[in-house]
């Protein structure tokens, strides 16, 4: 059902035993391609000698839709791109439009946005960790991860009524005030979460099999990463200390202390460690932010009908997967003339071929997992 028999591709190579190179078609329905990614692998035995990613199965034309919606109407659509980190998508879009308008969200809104986005980062990384471990054969962490993610989703639900595609922010600020007990909920989660991360790490970090499966697998040097446009944790694990939260602080990130973890070797294990540390740092940001949420309005005065002056703007945020950018062109009407999304997954996925070459089939799933793609965002 899944394997395509690409006989034309099975060229006979003249190796010693006359062993064939076979074309293995992974996906679009495969348990560990994280959605509907299709990878065509050229294998020599079990070793990958070439690969091609075939994407687009989830293409919904988000950018085209944007041109036929008003600025506010389009906001919910962005949640459907990286549906694992909808809040981050929303933040990027709202801030981009605010920038286009020349408006600015009030401080209270910015802090709440920061908290929710960081919670979302933790949730996204938890999904990554669980599925990544599952791909590598560890069956148990995924349930622990989803247990904690559930707590985060509950906070989202209490805040805005939705769990997954939240549409929690509005252009100009927030629609909803925080609910009573928001601070306590976040605080309780953050306090519990510290030991939960340790729990995951006891299962994985020093496990010989885990280390064997991830160390030295899918190495991506910093030069390659930059040449391939890779951003986010994947770039950081390659040793480049770059995070948009520090480089171009947005929301309220300039008010908080946090570290940018980096990895030395750029292999799957380093990416694992980097993301684990990022979860800790996100927790730290949340704890700092929750201590002191400024009071005041939550919505800037942007008006009901948004008509940004003609012009264009590019605004990007550090989404859990990398740099999520919005390039919006306005022609002065109520609908954006062009919305371009710079999806981190799409561009990071491009590095797959570089990372997978020479690896084994088993490494392929580890590499797909470690890039942390969401096909909704790759295909848009």
């Amino acid at each position, binding site marked *: 059902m899944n394997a395509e028999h690409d006989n034309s591709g099975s060229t006979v190579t003249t190796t010693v035993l006359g062993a064939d190179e076979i074309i293995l078609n992974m996906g679009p329905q495969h348990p560990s391609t994280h959605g509907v990614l299709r990878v065509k692998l050229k294998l020599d035995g079990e070793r990958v000698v070439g690969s091609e990613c075939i*994407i*687009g199965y989830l*293409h919904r*034309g988000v*950018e*085209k839709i944007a*041109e036929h919606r008003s600025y506010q109407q389009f906001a919910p659509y962005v949640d459907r791109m990286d549906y694992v980190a909808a809040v981050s998508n929303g933040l990027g879009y709202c801030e981009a439009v605010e*920038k*286009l*308008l*020349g*408006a*600015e*969200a*009030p*401080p209270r809104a*910015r802090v709440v946005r920061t908290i929710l986005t960081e919670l979302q980062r933790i949730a996204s990384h938890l999904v990554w960790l669980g599925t990544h471990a599952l791909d590598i054969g560890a069956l148990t962490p995924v349930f622990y991860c989803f247990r904690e993610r559930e707590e985060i989703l509950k906070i989202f639900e209490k805040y805005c009524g939705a769990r997954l595609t939240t549409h929690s922010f509005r252009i100009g600020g927030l629609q909803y005030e925080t609910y009573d007990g928001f601070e306590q909920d976040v605080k309780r989660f953050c306090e519990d979460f510290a030991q939960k991360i340790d729990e995951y790490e006891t299962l994985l970090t020093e496990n010989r099999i885990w280390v064997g499966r991830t160390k030295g697998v899918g190495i991506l040097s910093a030069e390659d990463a*930059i*040449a*391939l*446009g*890779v*951003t986010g944790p994947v770039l950081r694990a390659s040793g*480049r200390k*770059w995070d948009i939260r*520090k*480089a*171009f*602080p*947005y929301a*309220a990130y*300039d*008010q908080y202390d946090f570290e940018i973890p980096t990895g030395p070797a750029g292999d799957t294990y380093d990416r694992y460690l980097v993301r684990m540390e990022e979860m800790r740092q996100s927790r730290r940001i949340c704890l700092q932010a929750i201590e002191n949420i400024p009071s005041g309005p939550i919505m*800037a*005065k*942007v*008006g009901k*009908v*948004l*008509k*940004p*002056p003609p*012009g*264009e*703007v*590019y605004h*990007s945020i550090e989404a859990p997967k990398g*740099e999520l*950018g919005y*390039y919006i*062109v306005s022609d002065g009407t109520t609908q954006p*003339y*062009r919305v*371009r999304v*710079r999806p981190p997954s*799409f*561009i990071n996925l*491009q590095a797959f071929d570089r990372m997978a070459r020479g690896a084994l089939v088993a490494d392929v799933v580890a590499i797909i997992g470690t890039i942390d793609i969401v096909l909704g965002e790759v*295909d*848009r």
Partner: protein
Amino acid sequence: MANDPSEKGPAPEPPGGKAEGAAVPPKPAGEGAAAPPKPAAPAAPAAAAPPKPPPPPKETGPKPVPLDNELVQRLKARFGDAIREATLDRKQAIVLIAAAQLREISRYCRDEEKFDLLTDLTAVDWPKREKRFDIILNLYSFNKNERLRLKAHAAENEAVPSVVNVWPTADWLERECYDMFGVVFEGHPDLKRILLPDEWQGHPLRKDYDILTQDTAWVRENLGIESGQ
């Protein structure tokens, strides 16, 4: 917007280079001053700055202004006429260049100006214009912590030089651009559709493409359903 020193003000997009340069137009001094130290530690003042209730956004708003900093001067000195125009829109530097020179300018930007990350490559369709496409390259320099946007006009059937061998990441981005707009990149190793099926007719993000003109034949043949509304 100028009097709206958001927390993004200090560090963001194009500051580093132009700060020393003819500190351009109606920017508040604050921004220029904060810019040179590139480690973007924009610090409290910006954040604490009261979000001044912006004037009704419909009337006044950010407007593109001409830009003339050192980077632009260097570019102009090097490429002359190929640098058509440089503007600053919402504090973001945009350089309009000749499409034919795209690869050379890209290489120069990468090697000499250290814009080593091609953040994004896309296009915008302006069907009424003589050269209908804007090719947009968003660059980023780790060294300067600075962004730069290259923009080139391209006519419908005009081949644009590919920048894949400058930034390998342009591979998929150019394919997507071709897929969505039908912009042909010359020198691309494998220019084919990426998101849409290979046999699809039409380029969806063009302005003259809509639900009535889309490829219903493909859908009927391959999926066995009637598409559209």
